[in-house]
């Protein structure tokens, strides 16, 4: 049971890294990035290939995150910026991108599932309260906490974060005060891509890379965001840990119905607190 719990938290940590990028793009730029799951898949495939060639997963993490950072930045600059604040064209365009990325992956890596080897450094296990915990899972939890801390610090404590918060509150005003909102959004979307890249590469030894993984992670990310609140990083952390634990424990105990176990908290949240745990009221009902 403790083992399931730790595994759930580790999976939730991975989910947080992925969902934080999605949530960042959603909360600040107001883009629902349907291709976020495809970003994850691309990163996972690339990391595995690099590990196979060089033997180092960390090199794969670096390459994947940088590549997706670039894709994110270019996507925002060339495509999404055209449709700024127009929800529908943005969603359709990111879905088009999803198809293109998924098909590219199929052409390049083929239809066979692949999985990364756990890096030797973290290959061992240790015991917590009588349960065996793989070191790699503990490593994931630490990385997620580190990322949460960095995001919190950047958004709440730095001038870049102040600009971001200003742009969210009143974009026109921020613009007229001389903030280059376009560049700010490009940086943010690049960061969202970067986070998706890290999560895909770090998740490669656990979930692996296969066609369809994009839709395996996307619903979970959506549930995390609905639970945590639109665009909230603390919300994403709490929501991700919750979803990770529920999903893992559910899968072990009643595998066929575990999805509906996730569904219940989401519907309850929507019925009684539609803004989510940490959401801001005015972004919801107007």
């Amino acid at each position: 049971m403790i083992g399931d719990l730790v595994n759930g938290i580790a999976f939730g940590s991975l989910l947080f890294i992925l969902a934080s990028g999605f949530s960042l793009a959603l909360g600040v730029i107001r883009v629902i990035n349907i291709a976020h799951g495809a970003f994850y898949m691309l990163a996972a495939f690339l990391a595995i290939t690099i590990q196979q060639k060089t033997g180092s997963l960390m090199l794969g993490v670096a390459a994947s995150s940088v590549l997706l950072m670039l894709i994110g930045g270019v996507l925002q600059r060339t495509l999404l910026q055209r449709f700024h604040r127009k929800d529908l064209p943005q969603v359709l365009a990111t879905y088009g991108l999803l198809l293109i990325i998924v098909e590219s992956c199929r052409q390049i890596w083929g239809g066979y599932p692949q999985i990364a080897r756990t890096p030797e450094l973290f290959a061992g296990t240790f015991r917590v309260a009588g349960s065996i915990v793989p070191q790699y899972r503990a490593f994931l939890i630490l990385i997620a906490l580190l990322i949460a801390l960095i995001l919190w610090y950047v958004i709440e404590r730095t001038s870049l974060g102040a600009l971001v918060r200003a742009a969210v509150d009143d974009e026109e005003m921020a613009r007229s005060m001389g903030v280059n909102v376009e560049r700010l959004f490009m940086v943010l979307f690049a960061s969202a891509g970067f986070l998706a890249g890290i999560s895909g590469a770090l998740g490669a030894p656990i979930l692996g890379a296969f066609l369809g993984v994009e839709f395996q992670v996307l619903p979970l990310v959506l549930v995390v965001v609905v639970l945590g609140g639109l665009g909230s990083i603390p919300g994403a952390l709490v929501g991700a840990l919750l979803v990770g634990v529920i999903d893992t424990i559910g899968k072990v105990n009643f595998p066929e119905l575990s999805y509906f176990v996730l569904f219940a908290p989401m519907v309850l949240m929507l019925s009684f607190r539609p803004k989510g745990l940490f959401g801001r009221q005015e972004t919801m009902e107007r």
Partner: protein
Amino acid sequence: MGKRRLYSLVLAALGAIFLAAVPVVLPAYGLDIATLALIFSILAIGLNLLMGYTGLDSLGQAIFFGVAGYTLGILTSRFTVGWGSAALAAIAAGTVVALLVGLVSVRLRGLYFLLVTLAILQVIWGGVMRWGEVTGGANGLSGVPSPATWLRGTVPFYYFTLLAFAIFFGISYLITVSPFGIAIRGIRERELRSATLGYNTYWLKLTAFVVAGVMAAAAGILAASYNRFVSPRDISLDLAFEAMLMVILGGTGTVTGPIIGAFGVTGLRYLLSVYVEDWWLMIMGGVFILSTIYLPEGIMGLARRFRGSSRRVNPTDEAVEGPRSSDRESVTADITEVSGVGWSERSEPAASNLEMGSQPILELRGIGKRFGELAVLDDIGLEIRRGERIGIIGLNGAGKTTLFHVISGIESPTQGHILLAGRDVTKMPAHTRASFGLSRTFQVTLLYPRLTVLENILVALMGWRFRRYQFAMWRRISRLPEVNRHAQELLQRVGLWEIREEEVRYLSYGHQRQLEIALALAGKPTMLLLDEPTAGLSQVEIREMRALIATLPLDLTVLIVEHHLEVIFEYVERVLVLHEGRLIADGTTEETRANDLVRNLYFGIGDTSTATED
């Protein structure tokens, strides 16, 4: 108009002939495409009701398509239920799920609504994938029977589908010209306006959502019966987005657009998957991206531009000028003429609950409103009697508009109570207050820009006075003589009858302000809040507006916020002065003119150091 109507009729006839002749003229694969395209047309027609008419961009249609398909599949293949009963159960299942999803989602708007329908779709899809014991998992379910033995052939099934399509097309057409259709278009344009006119927008949106859900379910049943197979694709994101692409590519908010879109996308998909099997999904991805960039108004929008009725495509030209500005003098004449008759003839007893005895029509008790640390309203208490005309003055930021928002139910106060005719309405939503006879205008004109002048008034009339028609889907709005007569009267009185067919976004600002007042009066309110009716008007237009205000019925209680003091002093008997959220004076116009505090603040006479404006 006549010519355009003929044109549409001829096109519709040609379309019908083509659809009827498909099995004869097209090769077998053409019949296959046409059958699927008709099925998807039903899905797209329903989605268009949401996207084009209600303003709900939903990714949820695939849920009801899939739920109905799976219900049919599971019942027929696992439980050997007959097709007819299974199809009924499938429609019921789709409807119930649409109702449940709608209950939690339609109160959300824009991006968040999109996100939530997406999330529910994805979670249900995931459930279908994992619950293989029942749903067949990723492999889907085969063995769905044909509706009847005589429908086994492709040609009979095509006509069966065509019949279903014709029924749903007819329903959707009826809805678009019905009172309900206009009511939901109002919500699409300005939901807040509809709420203050008395619409319970939640129920209207939910109704539209369920109607669209039923159409999706019907399409799902047809698809499962035609393919003899249900798969997770039927409940997938891919289907949701393809349906959206059909609507957008065809032309959102047009009657035939979704059908053109459905044929286009289905045909393209078919051709691509046959001729470029390896790359077709990637090409579809490109189609999605390119069509959002280059075809935002869809094929129908393109056709409109091509036909040269450029007005709708390029709104800026006329919006600047405003049509018939030369008629302005005659409009003024109309109003002055009307003022003799007055608004006050009340043919029917006002259906209001505000006419009780001598108790105040509006009472505020200790109203406070804070935004975080900032107190915008502070301990406001006042009583207003029936038929009083009251001016509210104060500097910018004094809290005047917030006071109106609090009274009309757009914002809730953080403290205190609001009583309308003795009834505590503090916790009641805007539309309930409207139904008690409260009406208002907005400082920034809040009309339905893409509806015509006449349609604006019709929406307003159905908000409260004729609300029995709000959900009517089976009759044309033009066949409601009573409502149309009232609309004509109202428009003639404000002098906008001549331009009733103009879309409101092309009107001059002065005309828009007048229409705003006509909307507020449509429900025969007993109390009217006018928020800066002359803001932004030219001198000529201000004169017209004053004439219009002067003709308001005498028994109507009026609260008016205004910066043009001459308007206030000419019209009201009592003036309230708001300063930094507090009520600092309340008296007759003479008292107010004489009040030193007011002279300081407002006229800049004497010491102005307290009059800091922020």
